[in-house]
């Protein structure tokens, strides 16, 4: 894991994809185990500071990275049920006892 300082005088903030490409060249790994985040540009432009992590293997990455960062790489899909629906289901479940609960949970 590392803190990354990017110098880009005259240009806008460098996108994360470009930064991970450069890291691939520097550390001779593949792009799917590199995770960079948290880039903040200093006042006046020209310099950006961010954080980055390179894992030894994709398995370690899947175990240790938070889900939202994995989702940005396409390695994780979060469920798309709305929380309101889930709460309604749960409250309906609470009213019933036993096997009927299973029916409400998986209609």
């Amino acid at each position: 894991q590392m803190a990354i300082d990017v110098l880009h005088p005259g240009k806008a903030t460098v996108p994360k994809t470009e930064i991970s490409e450069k890291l691939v060249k520097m550390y001779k790994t593949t792009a799917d185990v590199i995770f960079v985040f948290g880039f903040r540009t200093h006042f006046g432009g020209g310099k950006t500071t961010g954080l980055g992590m390179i894992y030894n293997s994709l398995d370690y990455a899947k175990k240790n990275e938070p889900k939202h960062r994995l989702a940005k790489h396409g390695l994780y899909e979060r469920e798309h049920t709305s929380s309101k629906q889930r709460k309604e289901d749960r409250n309906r479940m609470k009213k019933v006892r036993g096997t009927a609960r299973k029916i409400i949970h998986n209609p």
Partner: protein
Amino acid sequence: MAAPDMLDSDLPNAVTLLKNLQEQVMTVTAQVQALTKKVQAGAYPTEKGLSFLEVKDQLLLMYLMDLSHLILDKASGGSLKGHAAVLRLVEIRTVLEKLRPLDQKLKYQIDKLVKTAVTGSLSENDPLRFKPHPSNMMSKLSSEDEEEDEVEDGHSEASGKKSVKGVSKKYVPPRLVPVHYDETEAEREKKRLERAKKRALSSSVIRELKEQYSDAPEEIRDARHPHVTRQSQEDQHRINYEESMMVRLSVSKREKGRRKRANAMSSQLHSLTHFSDISALTGGTAHLDEDQNPIKKRKKIPKKGRKNKGFRRRR
């Protein structure tokens, strides 16, 4: 005559010395024979060794041969004047002396190599391992096929990662002793007054009065406003925390306001016309200038966050 007396006294010494010499010569010849046998058997291959050391070896051997030649001649009664071996000896001696500073420079590397050869590998904390890596100073983006650097990079990365993993210890929560709260209203008032007095004492008005009446020499310091230095210190603390914990902390509205005010304060003439409140010392009531904001009381209890909790310093 003095000479025979001296000879008599010296004779027994000479005899013992010669005997010692004989013994030592015998041991030395035994060792040298063992060495030559080993070298001839090829136990010390020097093809891949340092050529500098080989040169030194050869020079020392030649020196020894010439010396022994000289000793032989002298022992059999010959004179040493203008002997060819003397010139050769002088030449070899000068070359050896010139090699000595080179030797000094290589000493570190040779020591390290010898240690690695003897022990197999060095421990992690060996100070000999912390040599400078100029390859780390080069831009790694430009290097396409530099294979020597790969080994060194791998080394430094491995050692770096190892050190990071070794540092993580078990989290020990801080122990705070709970104290019974029984502060009366009067005590609270008194405390507030004392704090206001302390603040007033360090305000600019009082400080200038002190300077005027004290005998100490006048100090002119290029100091920034204390709020600015305080804010920059806090920013530095935040940056260090973020980089060591590898998280990004959120900035609350209060923090944003403080930062904005600190940035603005360094470029304002605010301090020229606005003075802090010294009513605690003068005894009057506190009053603010028209354009200063009134002090608001905190209404909401700030929400706890997992990241920010570790970041809050215990004041």
